């Protein structure tokens, strides 16, 4: 043993100082994947340039540099970015590898071309270095099996590698294409590697295709859900994040298993970087939107920075920037989860779990490099790629359930409110109907009382016209009664005288006195009859409705009521005076009328006419000057008289089938604005208490309804008014 150690030590030193010192390979040096990456081990020598003779095992390599393949640098390339060089390494297998000798293999996993010579003989070409005048072609190691290597133990082999590589044009710092995987540049495998790799590949392919299928389906599903519910922006965020995640998986699969060339590989690498960074860029959005119900402006700025940094860091290969970006995304997302923790319930739990699990896994995955442990690939695939989309599926399904419940609750509320409203409306309808009934009853009552009032007013009007008559009648009656009294008294005296004359025997004087007596008695009788006639007329006037139509002389009637009206007015106003002109048609036939009704109409019209002219004389007051102030009122009236005396004209005319009665005054006339109203009941221009406003309306009814005639008014403001009564001579025809 001691000698062996000494030999080994000796060998070691020889190896150190000599050229082409031999690397002794043992079973222990192989890793758990049953492979040994020679690129970082052994005593490699290196020389730039190309000479096929450099494959010769006996070549003196004293002028070669000691350099391991992993230590290759891009600046070793020429100005065109091409690096052509040779590596040489002596190996020897010890006896511990005895069992594996039958199935050893060689693999090269770099995007470069190399020709491998073993003991000066070309063993295998990976890609094309340009020998045999072929163009340069980088080797694509993806999914290749190891090249079977037949080695014997305890025999020294010289491995010479002709290596050609180019710098990658895509990156800012232009690394060698082989740069990233130089460690796998030259790997020796045992037979177990093959089986293991096959198993791994099979499993990986299964999981890969399974998860890709799952993700594709979910991506489709989420986009479909979003397009059906475009107002729900969180569904868009879910669709986007799941899409990015699945694109990342696809890009990585493409990069590692389906790259046709280095260019494709780089493209997929970029894509993968982009997708994972996009995923992290919008994750805070998703969290804020779902948990906080809004996206703060700062997140947009963050997303913009993240996208910019993604591009820059990818181009310049600034891994630490990317790590910072991912870390800040995680921190911000965590912040929104914490700040929105009140909202974490129901569907939102799925989001939180769907984010925390893969992110934790991602952090764990990164740290495995530093803390020397390995997580099985299957977990990566399931946890990292599947958790989030599946959680989102759970989220969406719960969210739909919650939305549906909310909608149902709302619908219930709406139905409840509608029912309440309906009931309310029904109640109100009932109430309204009640109110309408009450109002109707009230209205009916007021209508009744109005009717009663109206009939009372009509009665009042009759009484008023009776009152007007009474004053006239009093005067009319006074005179005949005076005559009756006076003539009787005088007659008493005459009888005394008569006796005296009889005693005196003066027959002539007796005759004269007795003649006077006779005439006095006739006068007493005449005036008595006159008085009783007036009383009779008064009684007739107060009798209402019972009037019988009798042939009547309109002229006599008009004259009678003219006198009554005049004296009635004079009884009230002693100073009143007016010129009365009567133009009666002597050929007027007697017509069938209710005399007291027509009389009332005439009285009314004549009264109005007198009122109108007296009004005018009063309004004329003050237009004259130089009068004795003590007799102003009378003076004014008298002074007006000769110029335009207050005049009331009554005209009757026989027009064949009809007769016409006109009552005309030269008063102030009726203003246009009230002309239409004068026949309306209760309309009056007289001061309160003086007129009932029923006179003209009653007159109108008496003429039109009672007698089938017409009552018209012609008026001109300032000039006067004329009422025209037209009565049919044969009222049977007219009414």
């Amino acid at each position: 043993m001691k000698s062996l150690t000494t030999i080994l030590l000796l060998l070691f030193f020889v190896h150190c100082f000599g050229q082409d010192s031999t690397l002794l390979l043992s079973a222990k040096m192989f890793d758990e994947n049953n492979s040994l990456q020679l690129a970082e081990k052994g005593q490699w020598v290196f020389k730039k340039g190309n000479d096929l003779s450099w494959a010769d095992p006996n070549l003196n390599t004293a002028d070669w540099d000691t350099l391991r393949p992993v230590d290759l640098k891009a600046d070793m390339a020429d100005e065109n970015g091409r690096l052509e060089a040779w590596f040489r390494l002596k190996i020897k297998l010890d006896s511990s590898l005895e069992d594996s000798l039958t199935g050893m293999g060689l693999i090269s996993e770099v995007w470069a071309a190399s020709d491998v010579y073993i003991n000066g003989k070309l063993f295998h070409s990976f890609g094309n270095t340009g020998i045999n005048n072929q163009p340069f072609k980088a080797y694509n190691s993806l999914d290749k099996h190891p090249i079977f290597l037949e080695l014997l133990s305890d025999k020294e082999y010289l491995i010479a590698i002709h290596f050609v590589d180019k710098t990658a044009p895509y990156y800012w710092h232009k690394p060698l294409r082989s740069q990233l995987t130089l460690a796998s540049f030259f790997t020796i495998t045992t037979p177990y590697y093959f089986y293991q790799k096959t198993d791994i590949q099979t499993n990986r392919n299964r999981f890969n295709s399974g998860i890709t299928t799952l993700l594709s389906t979910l991506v489709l599903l989420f986009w479909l859900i979003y397009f059906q519910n475009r107002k729900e922006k969180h569904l868009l965020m879910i669709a986007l994040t799941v899409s990015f995640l699945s694109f990342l998986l696809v890009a990585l699969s493409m990069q590692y298993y389906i790259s046709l060339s280095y260019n494709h590989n780089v493209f997929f690498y970029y894509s993968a970087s982009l997708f994972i960074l996009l995923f992290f860029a919008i994750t805070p959005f998703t969290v804020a939107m779902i948990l906080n119900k809004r996206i703060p402006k700062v997140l947009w700025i963050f997303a913009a920075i993240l996208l910019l940094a993604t591009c820059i860091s990818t181009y310049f290969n600034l891994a630490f920037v990317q790590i910072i970006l991912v870390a800040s995304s995680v921190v911000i997302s965590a912040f929104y989860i914490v700040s929105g923790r009140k909202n974490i319930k129901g569907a939102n739990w799925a989001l939180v779990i769907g984010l925390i699990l893969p992110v934790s896994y991602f952090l764990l995955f990164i740290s495995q490099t530093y803390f020397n442990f390995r997580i099985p690939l299957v977990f990566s695939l399931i946890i990292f790629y599947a958790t989030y989309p599946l959680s989102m599926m759970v989220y969406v399904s719960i969210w739909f359930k919650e939305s549906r419940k909310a909608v149902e609750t709302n619908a219930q509320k709406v139905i409840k409110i509608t029912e309440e409203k309906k009931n309310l409306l029904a109640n109100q309808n009932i109430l309204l109907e009640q109110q309408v009934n009450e109002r109707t009853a009230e209205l009916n009552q007021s209508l009744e009382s109005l009717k009663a009032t109206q009939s009372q007013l009509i009665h009042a009007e009759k009484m008023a016209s009776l009152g007007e008559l009474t004053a006239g009648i009093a005067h009319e009656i006074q005179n005949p009664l005076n005559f009756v009294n006076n003539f009787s008294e005088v007659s008493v005296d005459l009888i005394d005288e008569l006796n005296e004359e009889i005693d005196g025997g003066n027959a002539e004087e007796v005759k004269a006195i007795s003649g006077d007596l006779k005439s006095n008695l006739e006068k007493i009788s005449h005036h008595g009859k006159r008085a009783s006639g007036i009383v009779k007329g008064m009684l007739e006037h107060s009798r209402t409705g019972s009037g019988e139509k009798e042939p009547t002389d309109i002229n006599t009637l008009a004259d009678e009521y003219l006198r009554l009206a005049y004296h009635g007015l004079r009884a009230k106003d002693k100073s009143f005076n007016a010129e009365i002109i009567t133009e009666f048609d002597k050929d007027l036939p007697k017509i069938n009328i209710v005399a007291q009704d027509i009389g009332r109409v005439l009285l009314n019209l004549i009264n109005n006419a007198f009122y109108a002219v007296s009004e005018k004389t009063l309004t004329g007051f003050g237009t004259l000057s130089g009068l004795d102030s003590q007799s102003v009122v009378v003076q004014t009236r008298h002074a007006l008289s000769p110029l335009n005396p207050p005049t009331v004209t009554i005209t009757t005319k026989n027009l064949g089938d009809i007769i016409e009665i006109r009552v005309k005054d030269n008063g102030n006339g009726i203003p246009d604005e009230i002309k239409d109203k004068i026949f309306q009941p209760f309309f009056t221009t007289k001061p309160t208490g003086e007129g009932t406003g029923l006179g003209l309306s009653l007159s109108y009814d008496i003429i039109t309804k009672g007698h089938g005639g017409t009552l018209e008014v012609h008026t001109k403001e300032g000039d006067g008014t004329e009422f025209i009564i037209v009565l049919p001579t044969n009222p049977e025809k007219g009414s």
Partner: protein
Amino acid sequence: MKVLIVDDEKDIQPLFQQRFRKEIRGGEVEFEFAFSGEEALEYLQENKHEAVLILSDINMPGMSGLELLDQIKRKFNQPPPVVMMITAYGDAENFNQAMELGADDFVTKPVDFKLLKEKIKTFS
């Protein structure tokens, strides 16, 4: 003495003539009758200074007694005749107006002829 009676009632003429039968016969008084204010003015125009006393009704169609009074007091003031107003409406308003216009006396209907006779005697 000449007295002018103004009234629209024509029967006033036989009444006065009979009431003052003795006075007329004795030549103490002489009556003239006018049946409207206008007629009275006409008479006064034609027979100036004849009528010493004028008795007038107030309520007459056309010119009223008050108007007549006013005219008389303005136009026939040399010498001014005595004017007595007679009315059925013996109210204060009529009385005051008559007095304002210069009526010398006021008699209400029905006329107390004994009193009237006395009054006429005092004026004569």
